[in-house]
């Protein structure tokens, strides 16, 4: 499916064309979002094989139900919602002994931990190569509990609004906000270990 001629076309046109049964338009939509959906699916399922299933099921469902897409939300928000549901179903099937949802109560014992209090350089990421930086950022995200992770990925990496993330994840706005805060603080804590200014320690500001 060569679709390079469609790369510059805006999303609503592509959706309209896909609804008119233009398979090339739908393939272009898939191409635009497949990597993000795959990343999100991996974050939720924590398993590459499951994530691949979720990826396929998400675009199958999107294709089947394209006529139900209202167009008052972004296409990406709509498919994220499908992907989240598919990923949760996977988790449920894997852990048949208990139900799973992104609403699961989280151990909040360390929710606003701020043990590492040390200043960073202005651009601490400059100290690392691209690969090293990627590794540091990835492993910090992996260390978050899955409900925090999906909120953080949607809000701060994919740059969805709080309302869009709430809609996509089927959570309330306050739930998205409190998870985002905890995710940000936990990541800050982890990254401080790599990014703190040389020579500073935790008590430099006490």
């Amino acid at each position, binding site marked *: 499916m060569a679709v390079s001629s469609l790369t510059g076309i805006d999303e609503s046109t592509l959706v309209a064309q896909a609804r008119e049964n233009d398979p090339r338009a739908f393939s272009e939509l898939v191409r635009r979002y497949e990597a993000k959906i795959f990343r999100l699916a991996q974050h939720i399922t924590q398993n590459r094989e499951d994530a691949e299933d979720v990826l396929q099921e998400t675009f199958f469902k999107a294709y089947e139900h394209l006529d139900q897409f209202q167009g008052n939300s972004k296409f990406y928000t709509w498919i994220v919602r499908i992907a989240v549901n598919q990923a949760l179903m996977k988790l449920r099937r894997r852990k048949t002994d208990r139900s799973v949802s992104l609403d699961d109560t989280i151990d909040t014992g360390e929710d*606003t931990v*701020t043990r590492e209090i040390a200043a960073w350089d202005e651009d601490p990421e400059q100290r690392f190569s691209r690969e090293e930086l990627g590794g540091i950022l990835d492993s910090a995200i992996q260390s978050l509990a899955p409900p925090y992770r999906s909120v953080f990925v949607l809000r701060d*990496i994919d740059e969805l609004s709080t309302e869009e993330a709430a809609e996509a994840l089927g959570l309330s706005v306050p739930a998205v*906000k409190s998870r985002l805060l905890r995710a940000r603080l936990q990541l800050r804590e982890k990254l401080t270990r790599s990014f703190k200014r040389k020579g500073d320690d935790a008590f430099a500001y006490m």
Partner: protein
Amino acid sequence: MLTCRDFLKELSDYLDESSDRKLRADLEQHITQCPNCWVIADTTRKTIRIYKGMDPYPIPADVEERLMRALEKKIAAKAH
């Protein structure tokens, strides 16, 4: 007077610039007087900046190929 706990609770909205004006002024006053909260706010802001817009890894070629093949089948089946 805001406590550090109050400040942390409001930190996300403060960094997203979505707190109301009065609260924002109180939060700003707090960090001028509290070096720890200043550091936390500054390093959290940098955390958000570093992650923002981070591209996903390209999807592995074999995964994409299987996806596209499965979709082609699906689309062909619908057409009949």
